[in-house]
């Protein structure tokens, strides 16, 4: 009898110890496990491409078309088109954002500089055009104020949605955002400065009040092993298929920009076949209705530009090519 009783007592002791240990184990390792899960799904895993497309979501292109008939300053015969890629706050810059000799890579403009530039445009009463207005200007259906600019941003990086979008929205500005549609992610994750993050489909939808979206290929923003852009390396059918896919994804075919600014006459033929209305290059120059509408020049805004340089560009006076040759390695 006593043997059984002591065994029961022992069992109770074991059960208690096991329970205590198990609870402690779960309390300590549970949160750690969640932390790992959170990290992996936010930053670690390759982002999953969006299952939903922009055309599914019934978000129509911006239809902003303001009345400029009472403008006193006069009308523009050419419009400055600005081009940006990454907009990142200074304190979030990482090693990979710098070149070997410690300069910011050309594609990055700090949020601080960007904000200054936008403030300047606002203060100087520049009209930041919507894509619709710009299209009408280029097709000679509309006159726009003399001090007009079009802001374009390439690639669809998350940092633009995170940092540039609020600034543009605050000023009531618009911008054309060229999206590599295949890299838009399914889930919205926390911003992580150390990795190259593309925007999610939800972020795109949320920012549709400021951004008009353009075609920047579906998955052809790459170079092959010989350094040739996919747009030039692949045959016509493949390229057309990819661009058509991006158009379909966006649910529109208004604007296109070629990756790396590299294209050839075949590309232009494809654009025509796909009924793309406007295409932008990375060649410097101001946009005029007399130009080829599938080769609209843009001014890239680079981190080494001072405010004075920026002013010269938007005021359309001054040639900065000297400065660029100096700053850009392979010119």
């Amino acid at each position, binding site marked *: 009898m006593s043997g059984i009783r002591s065994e029961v007592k022992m069992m109770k002791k074991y059960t208690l110890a096991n329970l205590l240990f198990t609870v402690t184990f779960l309390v*300590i390792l549970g949160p750690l496990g969640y932390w790992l899960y959170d*990290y992996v799904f936010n930053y*670690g895993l390759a982002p999953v491409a969006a299952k939903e497309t922009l055309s599914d979501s019934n978000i129509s292109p911006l239809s902003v078309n303001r009345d400029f008939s009472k403008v006193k300053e006069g009308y523009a015969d050419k419009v400055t088109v600005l081009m940006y890629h990454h907009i990142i706050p200074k304190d979030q810059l990482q090693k990979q954002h710098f070149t070997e000799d410690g300069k910011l890579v050309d594609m990055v403009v700090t949020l601080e500089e960007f904000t200054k530039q936008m403030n300047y445009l606002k203060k100087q009463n520049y009209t930041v055009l919507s894509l619709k207005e710009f299209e009408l200007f280029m097709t000679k259906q509309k006159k726009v104020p003399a001090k007009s600019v079009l802001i374009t941003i390439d690639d669809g990086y998350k940092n633009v949605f995170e940092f540039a979008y609020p600034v543009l929205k605050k000023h009531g500005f618009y911008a054309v955002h060229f999206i590599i549609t295949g890299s838009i992610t399914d889930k919205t994750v926390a911003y992580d400065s150390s990795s190259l993050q593309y925007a999610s489909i939800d972020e795109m939808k949320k920012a549709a009040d400021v951004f008009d979206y353009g075609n920047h290929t579906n998955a052809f923003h790459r170079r092959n092993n010989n350094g040739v852009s996919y747009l030039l390396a692949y045959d016509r059918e493949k390229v057309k298929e990819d661009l058509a896919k991006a158009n379909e994804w966006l649910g529109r075919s208004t604007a296109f920009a070629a990756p790396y600014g590299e294209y050839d006459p075949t590309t232009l033929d494809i654009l025509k076949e796909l009924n793309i209305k406007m295409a932008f290059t990375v060649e410097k120059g101001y946009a005029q209705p007399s130009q080829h509408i599938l080769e609209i020049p843009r001014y890239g805004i680079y981190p080494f530009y001072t405010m004075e340089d920026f002013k010269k560009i938007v005021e359309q006076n001054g040639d900065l090519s000297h400065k660029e040759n100096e700053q850009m390695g392979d010119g």
Partner: protein
Amino acid sequence: MIIFPEALLEKLEGNPMILMITLVLFCLFILFHTLYIFIPLYTCRAQKRVYPAKETGISVLIPAYNETLVIENCLMGILNADYRNLEVLFINDGSTDDTLATFHKHLKLTKTSKPKQGVLDHKKIKDVYRSQKYPYIWVIDKENGGKADALNTGIDFAEKEIVITLDADSILEPNSLNEMNLTFSDDSVAAAGGLVNIVQGFKHSEKKWIPQFNIPGLIRYQVVQYLTAFYLYKTAQSKLGALTVISGAFGAFRRSVLLQANGYRITVGEDMDITLRIQELIGTTLKGKRIIFVPQAVCYTECPASLKNLYRQRIRWQKAFVDCIITYRKSFYRKINFTASTYVLLDSLLLGTLCAYSMLMVPIIVLVTMDHFQLLFILLTISTILAIMQDIATLIVSRRFGHFYSFRDYLALILFLPLEVLFYRITGLFFVTFGTILYFFDKDGWSRSERIGQPIMFDTEVKVNVRDTLGG
């Protein structure tokens, strides 16, 4: 032209693959180690052990090659064993030191002959001696042929139904043979492993062994490691039918099974080799039989006291392991059952050996790419805390088998655990890594670690002799 940082794109596109592999391995690691904690915790309980009245015959085999320093301790354990139906065979494997003389001194040996079955090959026998003082003890003097060869000799001479193999430095607990007898009263048991404790981790007075932790760090590490390996890992593996190493320090086999296995293969990892061979038999001709671990059957053995000797021992173990994996590579999942194969290939090989490289590589990769610092931190934190929890589980489970420490020792243990996890385990990783590499460059260099031969004194007749011999 604008410079697009393509390198940035490529770097991040290449990374997730490495990352995914790391994470999958890490999750496997967590899974195995969580099982090692919870299976023993929920299945182990101290039971009152009732030994069967019938003593099944036991032959104890002890190969000895130049073991003068420790063989007396082993002999003392044998003399203290509380068992009648017993024969003990010391196999002197061509020692070049005083091992044979030591036997002569304590055992009053006379030359005799002993029938043998002649079914296993082994090196030439020089002489067979029998003790006049303890007629159940025999000494077989043979030409040197290595441990596996010596064991085969022993099996050939053994007459009893159960064969127990010990190392020359193994000291049996008095009731350990009764425990094995009880274990083998279950017909399904083909082989069993006993629990091996580290001598240096105990105070021994009279007939009692009292665990103590007031010992050097290197030995503390091994004590904790042995306790975890036996009380958690082997218990869990035994429950899952996945025991793949019966320690050479204390193993028990049905003689018929050893004969069916054709004895030991001539290799240095002979203990893992014979276990895997028996697992093969269980998967083929001995279906339904089991290999189990018996935590109540205890022996004590010396562990290396210097880093150099520990290094030698661990390199030898790792080489032996790699050798077994290569030898049995075709048997996994075919002859050897699913859990045992999975255990060996995933836990021992993939996580224990191959991951050793990746574990050592992870910090290097992170430093080179300057990426995923946070991930490294999370992984390190989880594995450290898991290791500490595992050590605590070890203490809980070992207590249930009567392995009590004093309050002071528990305090010392708790303080030691983080050091164990952060320093000693990393050292262990290096051993595993070097051992694997060395296997492929120097297969035959099986350097052995030196014996210490700390005299263990009991209140027995031998005590006086031991003192005489060692001048204590």
